[in-house]
Structure formats: C-alpha cells, structure tokens
C-alpha cells in the first residue's frame, strides 16, 4: 500500500509530502502519524507541504485533525513551507487552519518545535 514516510529525529517526527495526495493516502498519513507519536513518544511533528500544489478542504481538514490529535497526545504540530498561491486560495476557500501552527520553512519549523520543547522542560 502506498504510504508517506515518517522520519524520526530525536523527539520529533518529520513528514515531507512529495506527492499529490488522494483522500485515502491523506487518511493513512493521519492514522500513521497518530500511531507513531505514541510508539516513539514524540513531542513534536513537522509536516513539510512545500511540494503540495493545492490544499483543498479535505487536506486542510487532515492537517487540522493531525494537529488536534497530536495535541491530545501531548505533542506539538507545525506545518511548514506552504506556497503563497496555496495560502491565498486556502483563505478564499474559507479555511484558515485554526489551531495549526505554521512556519515558513523546515528550519524555522524545527526552531519552533525545539523552543516549545525546551521551554517546557525548564
């Protein structure tokens, strides 16, 4: 079965979506990530969507769901790399990804997760 790979880096899980996701693939990613947060005791999830050419209401809902499920499982989620045209379209569509933290790129997203994680440990 087709799957999007999830990489583990320290306390964090990294996902880079490189394919045009059909709905079932998006659902599988959602389930896989939730399972891996528990299995790896992950404290953060970074999702890179810089290769995604569109985010429609289904993918938007999936991103929101992942962030909500991660939150319940004591992990932070950050979505990075959204293309400007995608952001414009998403807002016009009526989706503002409330509850989902975003950063411009992977580097800034990792900084955000690290800051959230270390400030919590103090």
């Amino acid at each position: 079965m087709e799957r999007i790979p999830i990489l583990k880096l320290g306390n964090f899980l990294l996902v880079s979506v490189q394919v045009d996701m059909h709905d079932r693939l998006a659902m599988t990613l959602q389930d896989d990530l939730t399972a891996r947060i528990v299995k790896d005791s992950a404290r953060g999830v970074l999702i890179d969507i810089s290769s995604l050419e569109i985010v429609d209401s289904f993918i938007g809902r999936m991103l929101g769901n992942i962030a909500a499920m991660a939150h319940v499982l004591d992990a932070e989620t950050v979505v990075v790399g959204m293309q400007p045209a995608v952001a414009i379209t998403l807002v016009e569509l009526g989706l503002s990804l409330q509850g989902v933290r975003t950063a411009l790129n992977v580097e800034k997203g990792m900084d955000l997760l690290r800051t959230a994680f270390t400030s919590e440990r103090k």
Partner: protein
Amino acid sequence: MTVTALKSEAILLRSSEDVIRVRQLTREWAIQTGFSLVEQTKLITAASELARNTVDYGGGGKVLVEALNDTNRRGLQLTFMDEGPGIADIEMALKDGYTTGGGLGLGLGGAKRLVNDFEIVSRPGEGTRVRIARWK
C-alpha cells in the same frame, strides 16, 4: 459573442484517484490557457472540491473539461455531472459550514468563490450538475 470549445475531455469520477486525475488535467490545461499560478491554484482547488463531491455525495459520475475561446478571452470550463440523490436545498448547501457528510461544509460555497462562473442544477432523486468556469 460566441463561445467555442477548442478542445474537451471527459473523465469518469469513481474514486479518490480520479479526483487526482481531474486536478492534473485542470493544471495542464490551465497552464496552456495562460493562467497565472494563483489562478491555476484556485481553479484546481475548486475542481478538486467538486470532483470529490461527485464521488462522495453523487455516488460517482463524470466531469467534462473544456478549453473555451470567447471573442476576446480564453477560459477553462468544468461541468460535473452525477445521477446521485441530488441536493434538496441548494441555497443551504452553498452556505459555509453546512454539511451532510461529516466534512467541513466548505466545498460548494468555497468552490464558487474560486471561479468566475458558477452554476448548479440539482433535483432530488435525479442528480446534480455543477458548471464552473474561469476566464483569462
């Protein structure tokens, strides 16, 4: 003012893989029509929403994609057709947040905001036909 179709292609809509096929064809033809990246993205996103509606709510159907030539403008038109249960209250279905299928309820109203032309005809028990177009 006469609108002529430069070319057209029909795609069957049965599964979520077919939704991707619609997105790809729309992208290809939107680029050929000369749409900017933002215009392409808006049209592809609208096409994705409506194709999913056809599969999930219409019980499958088809879409006709047409590259149009008007007197002094070019455009892309997509007509989604299904023979599903139809929509009883279209005005309600176009409202943001209204859903019967557990989604976000942004598909129909959202798609309308992303295109220039939007037309919907639906009769309970007979099916739904949604036509959208974006002009350059």
